[in-house]
């Protein structure tokens, strides 16, 4: 009797958590189409004026352009670097292996504000503060753990026997890489690419310290806009970002399963 009642409480609890997790994301959608001048709920009327406002403001477009540029470059670099590192980490056993893995994952767990300040300081001594290249290096550092993880996750599922077979049949290491490993790793690499891209696009704290006038990423531009305006423009840009996230989630789910990437 008791054991039958318990799952019902559990299910109700989980349902409540699901609502909690989705609420702030869902609630943005109607607000973006409000005709009210304030960010309120329930939204008043229907209009697309805030989307028009968004597009008429050059600063959002140039911030979006910078964000996409940095995200694409950081993703490309992270994937190449991450692929090499993941291969070493998950195909060989060597002294210091787990210490290195922990080192590569550190940006994920290091308090963001301290990392942001530290990167700003080292970039300033190198003359790269508020500089495109300084920002790019920081974004590579932040996206690399995700690339290593996703590629590592799919690498672990490829039997080492396949590699041995290819080598026994006379494949040279370069051929093994191009004709065997790369095709097998393609879903992992694609998932890692999407993940890195989104993480870079959304990165806030580190970018706050490394950007400046003339070099502003989209999240920072939204933050700056919201400092002085409280209209639904930030809801409309949020809708666009949510759509991009949804596409990303759906694609990763189809490629290799979000769950496998993250756990």
């Amino acid at each position: 009797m008791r054991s039958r009642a318990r799952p019902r409480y559990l299910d109700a609890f989980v349902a409540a958590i699901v609502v909690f997790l989705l609420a702030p994301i869902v609630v943005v959608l109607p607000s973006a189409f409000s005709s009210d001048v304030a960010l309120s709920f329930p939204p008043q009327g229907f209009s697309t004026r805030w989307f028009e406002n968004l597009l008429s403001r050059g600063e959002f477009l140039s911030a979006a352009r910078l964000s996409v540029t940095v995200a694409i470059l950081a993703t490309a670099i992270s994937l190449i670097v991450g692929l090499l590192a993941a291969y070493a980490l998950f195909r060989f056993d060597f002294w210091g292996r787990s210490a290195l893995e922990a080192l590569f994952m550190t940006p994920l767990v290091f308090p963001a504000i301290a990392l942001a300040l530290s990167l700003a300081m080292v970039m300033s001594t190198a003359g790269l503060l508020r500089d495109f290249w300084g920002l790019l290096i920081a974004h590579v550092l932040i996206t690399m753990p995700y690339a290593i993880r996703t590629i590592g996750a799919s690498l672990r599922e490829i039997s080492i026997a396949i590699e041995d077979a290819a080598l026994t049949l006379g494949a040279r290491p370069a051929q093994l890489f191009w004709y065997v490993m790369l095709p097998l790793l393609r879903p992992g690499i694609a998932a890692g690419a999407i993940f890195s891209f989104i993480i870079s696009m959304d990165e806030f704290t580190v970018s706050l310290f490394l950007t400046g006038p003339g070099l502003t990423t989209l999240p920072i531009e939204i933050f700056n806009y919201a400092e002085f305006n409280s209209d639904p423009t930030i809801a409309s840009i949020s809708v666009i970002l949510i759509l991009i996230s949804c596409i990303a989630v759906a694609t990763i789910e189809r490629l290799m399963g979000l769950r496998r990437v993250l756990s």
Partner: protein
Amino acid sequence: MRTVRSKLLIALLLAPAVLISMVMIAAIATTLGISFLRQFPGDLQVTLANYIAFLSQPFLLKAAYQTMALGLVVTAICVVLGYPVAWFLVKRDTRFRNAVFLIVLAPLLVSIVVRTVGWIIILGNEGLVNALLISLGVIDSSLQLMRSFWTVVVGLVHVLLPFMILSIASVLSKIDDDVIEAAMLLGARPATAFLKITLPMSMQGVAAGSIIVFALTIGTYLTPIWLGRGNVNVLAISIHEQALISVEWSAAATSAVLLTIMALVFMAIFLASIRRMTRR
């Protein structure tokens, strides 16, 4: 010959990633160094003055206290809310399981800026909760739901709960069901089996999740500034002010070092207590 070659190969494969990580190590070392300089750039005398100054400013001490309180409260709530969800994801056999997993994980790919905007719409003076309560006749005028410690807690729990759930679920999924069954066959009631076997065995996941959630909470700048609106002054806000507004790099570095030490101390305490528990 073979081992020498494979050692060289490993080194070459790892070199680029190590190089990038070196930027982080150099960054942390620079911060540590600057925190001991009287005023960077300018007066480069090595001194403890910045740490003494930190400890003698009530404003900063209060920020440190708020930061710690926020970290502990958010972590505790994430454990309490996250554990049952992780349990559901691992043990409960329903067709909704995959959907719930996706909903738990998907927010990780939505920008923190977007999610905080969502909380402003829900908790603001003209927000969803106030509109709902007024239309139900519970209250006459808007409640002040923003600008408080608990608003910031809500926003942070929302951002960090997925990390806790993932962490606990990954450990729960490794616990062999046969062990629980054996305990029940030997006469343990379900509650006893849970308290004596599952809970201790899953503590590793709780610990790992707590360490991550605590470190990420105390390092978050956006949520306290946007949802606290000046009423929740944590160290992240102080660091931002010291570095970018009053441009006192040495003072900012000192605060950042102390913030990081806070995360490390929390981690050490948690790891030590876990070791003690598993020994027993």
